[in-house]
């Protein structure tokens, strides 16, 4: 085959039909082209605990997954429903305390307290956030930022659940292996579940509420109902992450309401790519280990950390995921003319 009757062609051109979500696959190679990125992500996450040297770095991977759960719940609420929620720490804290209470006071095992914390915590957070649902944009963000502070001060002031000492003597997962694969598995379920959800008809309603809530009301749909549902989904995910955190540290206390849990997931979303769901996971995989590596620098750590963030925003402002997606779609192959 001479070079004259061949030309380069983008692979995705042939298989994308009209709109997203519709593909025309003609060969196994095209199928592989679509599956490869998803496979790399799943296989990579599942292999990570095995590849990590020592217990310390394996623990870091668990923490990465916990942050990633909060980050994708933030990404879902902010970029698919239009509710910019800075209450990640609120979800983590509520979930953590519920798991702690049921484990330490009622003796339930982690595999019961974690789902329980997700459902009960999700309900509790949704109930408290219900009055804020008419708010939009930055106003919703400010009010939700207040919630974790509010909870921490109440627990401190009334000396609830051990007060500033927190709840001690909580069971851990039965082994490090179970712990890591539990959080990695849950993270993958959340990630692909949410990707599926946002493409269903109900997911379209969420997007429509973000685009134009008045038109949704004029279509005979109760927007408060759907906003509450979205907040429940996101907060249940956050609470589940908090419950896992409690069982990993075998302790729950007011530092679970610390603003780190609100801010780091947002930074990860910005770095990874807003509105992509997989982006925040990648962002957490970068940010959390970096922050661990920088521990040697003591208080200077925060300076390096901030510089890295600024550099990302300057040079990759649309996020890693958008960049990688663009590059992946530009991959070409030779075809016969």
């Amino acid at each position: 085959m001479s070079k004259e009757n061949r030309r380069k062609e983008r692979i995705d051109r042939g298989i994308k039909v009209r709109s997203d979500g519709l593909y025309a696959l003609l060969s196994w190679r095209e199928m592989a082209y679509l599956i490869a990125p998803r496979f790399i992500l799943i296989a990579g996450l599942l292999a990570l605990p095995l590849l990590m040297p020592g217990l310390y770095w394996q623990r870091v991977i668990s923490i990465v997954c916990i942050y990633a759960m909060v980050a994708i719940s933030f990404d879902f609420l902010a970029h698919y429903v239009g509710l910019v929620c800075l209450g990640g720490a609120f979800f983590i804290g509520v979930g953590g305390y519920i798991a702690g209470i049921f484990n330490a006071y009622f003796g339930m095992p982690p595999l019961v307290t974690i789902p329980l914390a997700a459902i009960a915590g999700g309900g509790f957070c949704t109930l408290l956030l219900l009055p804020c649902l008419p708010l939009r944009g930055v106003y919703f963000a400010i009010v939700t930022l207040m919630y974790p502070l509010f909870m921490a001060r109440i627990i401190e002031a009334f000396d609830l659940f051990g007060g500033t000492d927190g709840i001690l003597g909580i069971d851990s997962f039965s082994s490090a292996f179970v712990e890591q694969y539990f959080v990695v598995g849950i993270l993958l379920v959340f990630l692909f579940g949410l990707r599926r959800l946002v493409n269903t008809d109900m997911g379209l309603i969420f997007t429509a509420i973000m685009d134009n809530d008045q038109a949704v009301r004029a279509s005979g749909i109760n927007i408060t109902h759907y906003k509450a549902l979205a907040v429940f989904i996101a907060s249940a995910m956050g609470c589940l992450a908090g419950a896992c955190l409690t069982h990993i540290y075998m302790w729950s206390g007011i530092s679970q309401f610390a603003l780190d849990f609100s801010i780091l997931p947002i930074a990860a979303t910005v770095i990874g790519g807003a509105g992509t769901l997989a982006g925040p996971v990648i962002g957490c995989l970068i940010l959390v280990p970096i922050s661990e590596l920088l521990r040697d620098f003591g208080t200077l750590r925060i300076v390096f950390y901030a510089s890295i963030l600024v550099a990302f925003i300057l040079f990759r402002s649309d996020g890693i995921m958008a960049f990688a997606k663009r590059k992946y779609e530009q991959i070409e192959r030779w075809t016969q003319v």
Partner: protein
Amino acid sequence: MKHNSNQTPPMLRMENVSKTFGGVAALSHVDLDVHEGEVLGIIGPNGSGKTTTVNAITGFIRPSGGRIYFKGKDITGKKPHKIADMGITRTFQIMRPYYSLPAFKNLVIPLFSPRARRTGGWRGGGNLGDRKTIAIDILEEIGFERDSYIPFKTTSTLPTGYLKRLELARCLALKPEILICDEIFSGLSMSEIASMVPLIERLQDDGITIVMIEHRLRELFQVANRVMVLNFGEKLVEGTPEEVMADDRVKEAYFGSEKIEEVMTYA
């Protein structure tokens, strides 16, 4: 085509409805009856309270006084989604499509609503399993070319004519009983308006009661059975297009001292 329904009780009735914003009376003591199957036009100069009337009927604002009845039921101050659920749908003067979605997915949202599930959507049919296909059917009927890319294009890239049709389609997906069009002709070219007029007539033939707010008087008088004129939030005249055109007060309010026929030639 022209519809006469003086005997039947009104489908929609506004009684003594007022709305004040601060000290400004946007609507004062407006009475209005809309009969089943008719096309009612509401006209008036800018700021005369036309859109406020629509907002009051569809629940987007709560009237300061008066009552609104739909088929004998009091709907004053009900939430917008409740009123849409009863079958009163509206388009927006400033179009409100979901810009980030493709055109056909815009219609999945109303088709997902409780009313569409109950009625089976525009043209009925009951089974709403495949909302995307039904959405494309509705778009085709409203003037989107099915075999083109247009229904699949992102809404933000569509021209105004299609966005106006999309507004209408969003209402139709709910299988409305009353359709309120807020300036559906404005911003369209002459040929686009010319293709829109038969569409409105077809919808009337399908049994939908239509309320149209318009500045394009010539086209409105073609389709309307009855016209109400608002001025400074008050009802000035109500009657057939011919009566309204002949009324001196309307000429005075709307066009100053000019003759209405002269203005009509430019409108």
